[in-house]
């Protein structure tokens, strides 16, 4: 058992070089990795050592891999796990299957025959009653016609009023969304703990830019993008948070005609628990077309080091 001196706030200084060249025992390796999760200073030092260590690999005389290995490797890649979606199947009730084959079907057939016989008798009685009701119905129908005509006049007037109401509600809702975004932006900009994550273009269009202001320990975030291609009405950009190769849809972003768009992010976990954030757009106009990665950013574990 190692002396766990760095449990008390120290750094495992004599283990970092060994860690960089994979020369620690498993127990030491676990302790260093636990320490690195919360120590940016040691992470930087390990990175420096690893940058030197990998050069050792270059000392080896090069030998090309057999040509067949490439196809074999690509064929062996496991399928990525798709975006986690709710399992709706568990809400569908299961039909009981017990005993059905043995006795339920014959019993059901007998019951059905009995019902058929009685229903024929009932049908004859009901037919005569229906004839009486038809004659009464014609009187009621005439009265109803007059009422409908009157109602239509009122409905026309009402519809005009409703259209105006919907328009004003839409304007109000849009304004409230804008106000919420501005309020979030002001808060995040002013707060000293807010950290910016810069999103880089994934392709060759360097003009597209994005930044995420992350506040409240990663619980709250606001994405802003600029110089983007305007998103078509039914085909907005998608924002994904990725953790261990599994992506989670964080929201959909609309970009206006000026190339500007904003989105409040409220992820399931704090933003800094994820590995990366990506912005994609479907190629073409159909939602089932392949996605194109537009902007991307790695998320530093535990937030940016200041």
């Amino acid at each position, binding site marked *: 058992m190692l002396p766990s001196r760095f449990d008390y706030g120290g750094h495992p200084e004599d283990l970092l070089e*060994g860690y960089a*060249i994979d*020369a620690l025992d498993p127990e030491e390796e676990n302790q260093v990795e636990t320490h690195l999760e919360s120590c940016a200073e040691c992470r930087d030092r390990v990175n420096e050592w690893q940058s030197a260590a990998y050069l050792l690999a270059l000392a080896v005389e*090069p030998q090309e891999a057999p040509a067949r290995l490439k196809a074999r490797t690509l064929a062996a890649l496991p399928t990525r796990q798709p975006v986690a979606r709710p399992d709706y199947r568990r809400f569908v009730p299961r039909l009981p299957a017990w005993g059905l084959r043995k006795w339920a079907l014959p019993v059901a057939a007998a019951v059905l025959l009995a019902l058929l016989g009685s229903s024929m008798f009932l049908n004859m009685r009901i037919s005569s009653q229906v004839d009486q009701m038809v004659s009464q119905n014609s009187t009621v129908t005439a009265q109803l016609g007059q009422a409908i005509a009157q109602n239509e006049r009122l409905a026309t007037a009402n519809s005009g009023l409703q259209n105006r109401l919907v328009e004003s509600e839409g304007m109000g809702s849009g304004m409230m969304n804008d106000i919420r975004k501005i309020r979030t932006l002001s808060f995040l900009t002013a707060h000293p703990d807010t950290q910016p994550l810069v999103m880089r273009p994934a392709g060759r269009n360097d003009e597209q830019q994005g930044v995420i202001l992350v506040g409240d320990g990663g619980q709250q975030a606001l994405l802003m993008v600029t110089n983007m291609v305007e998103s078509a009405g039914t085909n907005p950009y998608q924002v994904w948070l990725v953790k261990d190769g599994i992506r989670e849809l964080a929201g959909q972003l609309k970009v206006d005609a000026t190339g500007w768009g904003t989105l409040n992010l409220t992820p399931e976990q704090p933003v800094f628990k994820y*590995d990366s954030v990506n912005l994609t757009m479907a190629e073409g106009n159909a939602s089932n077309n392949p996605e194109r990665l537009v902007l991307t950013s790695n998320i530093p574990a535990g937030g940016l080091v200041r």
Partner: protein
Amino acid sequence: MVEYQGLDDRQLIERTAWGDKGALEELYDRHSTAIFSLARYMLRHEAVAEEATQEVFINIWLRASSYRPERGEPRAWLMSVAHHKVIDIIRAQKRTAAASDPEDYETLAAMPSKDRGTEEEAHLNMERARVRQALAKLPEAQREVIALAYFRGLSQSEIAARLNQPLGTVKTRVRLAMQKLRAELEEDVTEPI
């Protein structure tokens, strides 16, 4: 249509993290020789090295999202993933006698690099010669621990037992060797030959 050849390694790793097999294929084309060579040298067995190389690229495929550009260049990360996987295999094999011959790394430091054709290969040849020179300049005791640890997959405590030296001495040798290598190689970068 994405032109993968025009993308740098960082962009390819990011695309790989996103599940783009074309990006991984381009990474394979660029780095499989270095990774296979390291695996072949460390494992001493062609078929096992092939298996290791395949597993390295599967790891890259699955772990690409954990790459952090601010923590180092992509090639260092790729080779680090490769080295870690090969070490895992060596340890799983419980270090067979064939894979722990201490003489070979000595020849590595002294071995001249074979000349190769293209400009890129010429650059790699220069890098290889530079690293070998740096290794050759280390005191023998330090070179020994680096070779046993990095190329043979022994932990520091196993090296201490093997060399009959205190663990602290081995750790100090590893640290000094790494410091010297780093200083030597960084110096060479700033002052090209």
